[in-house]
Structure formats: C-alpha cells, structure tokens
C-alpha cells in the first residue's frame, strides 16, 4: 500500500449516514452562512460547510470587544449571535439551499425545548444535510456549558434531537471536561451518528494597561493552532472508545495539521480560525491531503484514518 503512487485518490468519506465528497469542512461560527467567503474560496470544492450556530429566538450576542488575539490563537465571545430560527428559515435558508456543497446546520439551546424546536425544523429535504448539536458553547452562562459537561445531559439532548429529526445528527463535544471519552460515549449512547470535536477551550486575556479582561464578556473560547495538541489528543482518545465517525477540528491551518487529525482517527476535518488567517486554507488542506495520499500510495483518503494508532 505504501509502495507506489496512485493516480486518482478516492476522496469521498462516509460518516455513517452522511457521505461527503471529501473530508474537508468548515467550522460553525467561522464561516457565516456559507456565502461570506465565496469570493475567496470555492465552496463547491469543499466536503461541506457548517453554518453559524442557531437558536430558536434571535440573539444579539455579547457586547464588544468579542475578539482577542492570543499566542498562536484567539479568544471569541460572540455569544451565539444569530437571526433566530424563523428569520433564518425565511431570509437565509433560500440562499443556503443553493450552496453547491453539503450544508450542516449548527444548533444551540438553553433548554431541551430549544433543542427540540431546532431539531424539528430541520428534516431531510429542508435544504440542510445534517444537524450539528452544539452542546459545548462556552459563552453562554445558562445551558450550553451544562449540557456539554455532564454526560447524562449530553446523552439526553442528543437522544431528543435524534428523535425529532431524520437528518444525520452530529454531536459537538466541548474540550472543557475531565473525561472526554465519557462524554463521547454518552453522545454515542444518545444515538449520535457522528461526533465533531473540539469546540473552544475556555480562556481569558487581560489588558494590563486598562486592567480589565479584553473581552467585554471577560471569558471566551480559545481556538486556533494553540489548541491543536489538545484536540488531537482528544480525537485520539475518543477514536479508541466509540464506534461512530469523528470530525476533527481545532487549530487546523495547513494540510499537515489536517493529516495529523486523520492519523489520530478523524474521518473528516473542519477548519475554523484557519479561515481568518488564510481564506484559501480549506482548499489548500484538501489538495494537500490528496497529495499526501498520492505520495504515500493510499488509494482512498479513508485509508489514512487512525493510522497513527
């Protein structure tokens, strides 16, 4: 298998019920509603995109500043700003439907009822191809964090969403837990078809001249290359413990980073903060993975998944 190079690499990946034309996605909250980066990166080439997190009601999100730069990373405290379900369906979905790639909706909530409403809204044929359940957003005091750090609640939320939609359900895990494997097993138990990981690490940065946290919300989510070792470790651990496919994310900027996640066990990868640095990152990652497979004689991109174990 490692002997000679291969002409055409099969780049398709099967994530349980969800098939992607290739393993490269973009992360929720970093790719808007799919058209913002269109002038810079050809979305039709990507495996798919994930929409900004949605809640039943519209949200104005947190006060400003919402961003802070940190060593090889950044903090954000957007706080789930979004137009709300109704406005999304009316004004955004028509355009989203037209996106020439797989589209994953990312849903959040502050109660089980919220998740239920969101799950109900997205069914096969609605123009959305899968639902990613954000049980891990660290920015919202009531709700998000709770579901994401208690295995029982996580299982309950996922089971509920799973019961209400016929779309593939992706459970998105928070890294801010003692035992990531326990969380992964819980969402698998809850019926998740796929796990995506990791969401941001909870962090803070202080302006030493103003003597106040930089973010108006004080704490925010840490993303970018800085967190990659934590993300890779967690993907590695979870791969060994569950039987559902994993979408790996956290600090991917180059194809090498993406291959690292795949060797650790991720069947697909997703690019978030990397887009801000290089809007062509998703495309370059895709091409790089393909070239890596070719160079090492792997006929299918799935062949490299978990190889570092």
């Amino acid at each position, binding site marked *: 298998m490692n002997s000679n190079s291969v002409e055409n690499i099969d780049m398709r990946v099967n994530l349980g019920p969800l098939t992607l034309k290739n393993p490269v996605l973009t992360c929720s*909250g*970093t*790719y*808007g509603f799919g058209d*913002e*980066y269109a*002038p*810079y990166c050809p979305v039709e080439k990507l495996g798919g995109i994930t929409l*900004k997190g949605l809640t039943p009601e519209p949200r*104005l*999100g947190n*006060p*400003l*500043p*919402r*961003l*802070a*730069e940190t*060593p*090889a*990373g*950044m903090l*954000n405290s*957007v706080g789930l*700003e979004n137009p709300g379900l109704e406005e999304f369906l009316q004004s955004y979905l028509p355009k989203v439907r037209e996106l020439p790639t797989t589209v994953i909706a990312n849903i959040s909530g502050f109660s089980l009822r919220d998740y239920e409403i969101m799950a109900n809204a997205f069914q096969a044929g609605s123009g959305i191809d899968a639902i990613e359940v954000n049980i891990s957003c660290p920015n919202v005091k009531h709700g998000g964090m709770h579901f994401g750090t208690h295995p029982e609640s996580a299982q309950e939320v996922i089971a509920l969403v799973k019961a209400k939609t016929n779309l593939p359900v992706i459970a998105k895990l928070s890294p801010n837990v003692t035992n990531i494997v326990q969380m992964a097993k819980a969402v698998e138990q809850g019926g998740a078809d796929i796990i995506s990981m990791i969401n941001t690490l909870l962090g803070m940065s202080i302006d030493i001249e103003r003597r106040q946290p930089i973010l*108006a919300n004080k704490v925010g989510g840490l993303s*970018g*290359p800085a967190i990659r070792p934590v993300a890779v470790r967690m993907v590695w651990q979870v791969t060994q413990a569950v039987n559902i496919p994993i979408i790996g994310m956290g600090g991917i*900027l180059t194809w090498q980073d993406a291959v690292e996640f795949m060797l650790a066990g991720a069947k697909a990868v997703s690019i978030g*903060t990397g*887009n*801000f*640095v*290089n*809007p*062509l990152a998703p495309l370059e990652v895709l091409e790089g993975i393909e070239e890596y497979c070719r160079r090492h004689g792997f006929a299918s991109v799935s062949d490299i998944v978990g190889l570092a174990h």
Partner: protein
Amino acid sequence: MLGKAQIIAHDFVGDPLYKIRRLVLRTEIAREAQPGQFVHVQVTKGIDPLLRRPISIADIQREAQEITLLYRIKGRGTEILSEAKVGEELSLMGPLGRGFTLPTQGELILVAGGIGVFPLLPLAKAAQEKSLAVSLYWGGENEGFFTSSGLELWQEAGIPVFLSTMDGSIGEKGNVLDLIQKQVESRVNHGKDAVAGACSDDLSVAVCGPQVMTQVVSDYFLLKGASVEVSLEERMGCAVGACLGCVCTLRDEVSGRIYRGKVCKDGPVFKGKEVLWDYEQ
C-alpha cells in the same frame, strides 16, 4: 481579492517619533477600491501574531494599480509589518466593506480625530473630481503629528484643512467639535453658508476617529439635519462578515428595529443616524 501585493514604498510619513508609516502596494485591489474601504493584511507568514490586521485604503492610484496605506505602529502586528521591505510581498484581502457614499451635490465636510483621517483622503479626492465643496476638520496632538500623518497630502490636493489641538499649539485650541462649532459660528457671523442654520440635504458629513469624538460630531451634525456617515473600528477576525466578531448596534431608520451590523461587511461606514453608540456596553 486575496493575493500577494508587492511593496513599492514603505517609509515614515514624517517624524518617526509619531510612528506613522506609508505603505504603497501594487495590487489589483486598486481597480475596485472605493473611499472608506479597507484591506486585511497578513503581517507575517507564521502564526505569531495569528490574525490579519485591518487597514484603511488611504489613497488609490488606479492607473498604477497601486494603493497606499497609512498606519500607526501600535502593537506587535504593526511593529512586524513595519519591518517589511520594499520588493517583498504581503498577503492582502480586499477591498473590503462598504465605504463612504459620495454625495451628488452640495458641500462635504470631513471630520477626523487623530489617525482617523487616513480613510478620508480618497473620499475628498473623489468629491473634488465631482467638483463638490470639500473641507477637512482635523483634531490632533500637535504640529508634528499632523505633518507626520499626511497633512501635506491634503495640502497638495488643495483641500481646505482646519486643525485643532488641545493645547492650541497649532490650529484652534480645543477638540475638533470646538473647532467645528467655532467655524460654524464664524460662518454664521459672516452669513456665508449651509453649515449655518438648520442645514439642508446639501450638507454631507463624513466622520472618522475615536468613538467618543465620532459620536459627538455625528450627533452635532445630525441635529443640524446634515446627512452624516461615520466610519467605525472594531477588532476583526474574518473581515468578511463570517465570524460576527466585529459587530456594532444599529437601529433601522424605517422600522425602528434594533440589529447588529458587521463593521467589516456592512461597514466600516454607517449612517450616523442609525448607530446606537452605547448599546449594551
């Protein structure tokens, strides 16, 4: 546009003490750039610092395919940027955002606080081309600052410039609003023009500077019935409207609905009357 731009010139505008540098870049962005738009510049190939830096387009030479950026060395990012050498290339995204509206007639008053003056020159030049009356009211620390921030460019362009400093060392003593009020009064006293009483639609105002100054100047002119545009600043992630890192709060003129605008995409220029300055902060 996303791509490499070659550095044509890179130097201090005046006294290096003021840390203001001029960066001329050859880029297709020059073709489409509009006054008030900006570019998102990668200051290093590595990941430290990680994010790009937003910088306004301070001059556009369409034929030469060149844009000029004027920036102040502020922190690590601009410090590293300042070390880029002529001939080297920088990765640039742009032109980004919604710039100023060029009035079709009447008078255009530009008001700048400090380095907020940088995005205003292209607007002034465009207004001149349309033969509009245009003038600049500019507050700054002292003479050195003005000459190191491109005052000459304005003089070369033949645009009337009125300065203010807090210590009165050059121009009017006081802040830029004091300057404007005084100026308005003097115009009234001389019975000269639009700024005087309740202004008509004929007066357009474009403001850029620190938030507090922008707000008071905007409110002042709005009260007078002028059409006011303000250029806002926020920390940016994506600069294309995808991350919601840079929003401001607006009230829809017609419906009264409160909503978030993205400074990077819906702005940086907004209608003064739509901005809710202190919302939720």
